[in-house]
């Protein structure tokens, strides 16, 4: 295919050609970045919590008047829940993965360290591992006798009388790797402020309640403390996935029956917890998909419109070429090549622009560098769109009969 005639034609429509190139470049740049952002969000939404989500339901209860003994109440409630048919296990925990409301602590490797090494989610409760379905990689879980009521622990810490408490913890693999890269975590000490605890177990995964950042989402630790009943605490119930809706309803009813005056503030399956946590990411991904579709449609229609004009404008020229022996195919290929040429220039410009937009986003938002694989995505999308859009007008051009050449306009 000879490019020269195409180029010389385009030179006569410089402004229009450049406008089309600019449109393709902008679309390409935005589409590259938008696809990348969608992927980023989808990956974030796939975050593993390390718990057996389909088998768990969460209930939160608030009391109308202060309780005389929150620990006794929590134990009674757990006993009531365990009586409900279908309940395999139940526990009380101060926060749940992806629950949004969180409890965290700064972790240090030395008690005298000035800067914390990392910040981790702190889970308190008894039998969390088996109930949540965590996977223990090394060591052991906390023993029930190590888990003391929070008042006892806080009083001991305030008095400096640390003999009564068991200073042990279970941490995630991600946290262990970050604290002791490549090393053994079991038996090592970590410090929460001045309080030292020994690592007795390492679990595969346990996401934090506020897992907004993928890099630190798995920094969690379990500490031996029982919080007692309270509006911020959650009863986590393990059941068979297909029974969970019925079990949730029955457990709520049983808790209400045990004390009709209290208020159940949260009752949801874990699927609902996850859905709620990623609600904004999902809607943002949806908006981005919509934006990409709208951009591609507008650009495609723009190409159709422009190509139609050019075809109409060049009817006589096409007729002359046909009369001089050009086949229908030659005409078709001519318009397709013209579009391919414009698209290629647009895409090249678009790549530079895409890179620039990504740099800007990296500076102002927490977004990683655009991986190179996304550049071909935008390029292929626009080449395809261009070829599809130009096909109609090009076919119309190919259908121009040679006799047009003999007619005066």
């Amino acid at each position, binding site marked *: 295919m000879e490019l020269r005639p195409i180029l010389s034609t385009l030179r006569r*429509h410089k402004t229009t050609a450049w406008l089309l190139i600019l449109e393709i470049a902008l679309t390409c740049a935005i589409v590259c970045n938008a696809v990348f952002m969608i992927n980023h969000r989808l990956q974030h939404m796939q975050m593993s919590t390390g718990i057996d989500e389909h088998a768990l339901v969460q209930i939160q209860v608030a009391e109308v008047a202060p309780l005389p003994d929150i620990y006794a109440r929590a134990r009674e409630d757990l006993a009531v829940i365990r009586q409900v048919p279908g309940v395999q296990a139940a526990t009380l925990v101060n926060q749940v993965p992806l629950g949004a409301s969180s409890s965290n602590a700064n972790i240090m490797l030395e008690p005298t360290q000035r800067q914390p090494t990392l910040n981790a989610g702190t889970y308190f409760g008894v039998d969390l591992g088996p109930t949540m379905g965590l996977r223990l990689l090394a060591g052991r879980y906390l023993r029930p006798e190590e888990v003391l009521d929070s008042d006892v622990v806080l009083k001991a810490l305030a008095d400096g009388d640390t003999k009564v408490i068991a200073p042990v913890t279970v941490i995630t693999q991600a946290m262990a790797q970050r604290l002791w890269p490549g090393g053994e975590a079991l038996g090592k000490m970590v410090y929460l402020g001045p309080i030292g605890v020994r690592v007795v177990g390492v679990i595969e995964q346990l996401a934090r309640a506020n897992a907004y950042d993928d890099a630190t989402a798995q920094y969690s630790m379990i500490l031996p403390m029982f919080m007692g009943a309270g509006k911020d605490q959650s009863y986590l119930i393990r059941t068979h996935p297909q029974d969970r809706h019925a079990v949730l309803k029955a457990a709520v009813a049983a808790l209400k029956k045990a004390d009709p005056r209290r208020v159940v503030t949260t009752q949801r399956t874990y699927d609902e917890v996850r859905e709620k946590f990623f609600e904004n990411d999902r809607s943002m991904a949806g908006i981005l998909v919509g934006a990409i579709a709208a951009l591609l449609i507008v650009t495609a229609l723009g190409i159709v419109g*422009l190509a139609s004009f050019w075809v109409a404008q060049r009817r006589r020229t096409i007729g002359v070429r046909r009369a001089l022996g050009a086949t229908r195919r030659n005409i078709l290929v001519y318009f397709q090549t013209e579009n391919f040429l414009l698209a290629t220039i647009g895409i090249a410009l678009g790549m530079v622009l895409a890179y620039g937009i990504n740099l800007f986003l990296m500076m102002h938002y927490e977004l990683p560098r655009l991986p190179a694989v996304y550049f071909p995505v935008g390029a292929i999308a626009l080449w395809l769109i261009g070829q599809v859009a130009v096909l109609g007008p090009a076919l119309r051009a190919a259908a121009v009969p040679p006799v047009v050449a003999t007619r005066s306009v």
Partner: protein
Amino acid sequence: MFGYYLDLALRSLRRNKALTVLMVLAIALGIGASMTTLTVLHVLSGDPLPGRSDTLYYPQIDPRDDSGQMPGEEPPEQVTLIDGLNLLHAKRADRQALMTGGYVPVQSDSAVVDPFYVEARFTTADFFPMFGAPFRYGRGWNAFDDETRARDVVINGELNGRLFGGADSVGRTLRIADTRFRIVGVLDDWAPNPHFYDLNTGSFGRTEQVFVPLQTAMGLKLERHGSNDCWGKGAGGVGRIYPGESCVWLQFWVQLDSAAKVAAYEQFLVHYSQEQKALGRFVRPPNVRLRNVMQWLAHEKVVPDDVRLQTGLAFGFLLVCLVNTIGLMLAKFMRRAADLGVRRALGASKRSLFAQLLVESGVVGIVGGVGGLLLAGLGLWAVRQRPSSYAALAHLDGSMLLVTFALALGSTLVAGMLPAWRACQVPPALQLKSN
């Protein structure tokens, strides 16, 4: 002449119906998307208390120990109970209030309705006059009630409707956490957005239904709701009901009516820090901040990143739509170069050709702009159906309506002028030749 040009424009537009629809739709979509996102951005970065916000300041001091201290570090975002009460009692500002969020069970005194939980604010007397909270009935409590831990409560209109059917309930009682409180005031509709005085309980669409004197609430151990940040012995952030001495968990706001008072108050905060350091309570050198409402909101970056991204995306889309329309319009005008050449040869000036073409592109722009406005209305409706906390706030106000018109007009001019100007440059003689 304008009537004639308009007639010509409409004829020309009717000749390529599909193309006209495409151009109008592209402009309408671009403007609709941009205006929807810009309105959300505008609403979220708005002033929660217009006319008052520049006299309201949020003092910050630094009571932390010296572990992890870094030069130029920001002081904590809240205050400890001791510091809060000290600053409150010092009364160095025109008005001052100490507060924290709460979450309390409420029941009407007759106890026929099941108790339900509502958001609460535990605060001190100046809260209402300082923030200009409007009362429908009654008034707030006073500083004496704060100190005597009076069981007074102010409720908002929504709760008053739910419990008392909207009647004047001042003097009546309700139960909070099984304790009887006397209603002293009922607020009118009042929900500053962003929820500037306590961003920990959510930045947008939050409003408390009951307001209880802080010391009364603490005496009754009513459950609080918010964030706390602890150091030293309080590390871990765990405590029964209220955080310990080495935790910040309350917000302290002051009203300062003049620049001189602001400077004096900042000086006072430094003196206070020095004094506390001399007493051994503070360890670090004085590290204070005194920001007004808008500075505080900017510092806290309350506008979600996603909203900024959406606005950028929408304007990118608008740009593509405009380029698209300019290209199509230009191609269309150039196709008519022969007509234009004839008109030029018959004596029409460049200016009158330009005017004629501008009328044609102007029609497309104006129709697109009106369509954009309608789409923005639809877009905002869609935003309001979304689950975000700020969803309910997405409404077009007067200033945004003006911006929309300006944007539509600007887009039209850009989209119309460039092709019209380019098409006028055609030399008449060239076009008179048969091609």
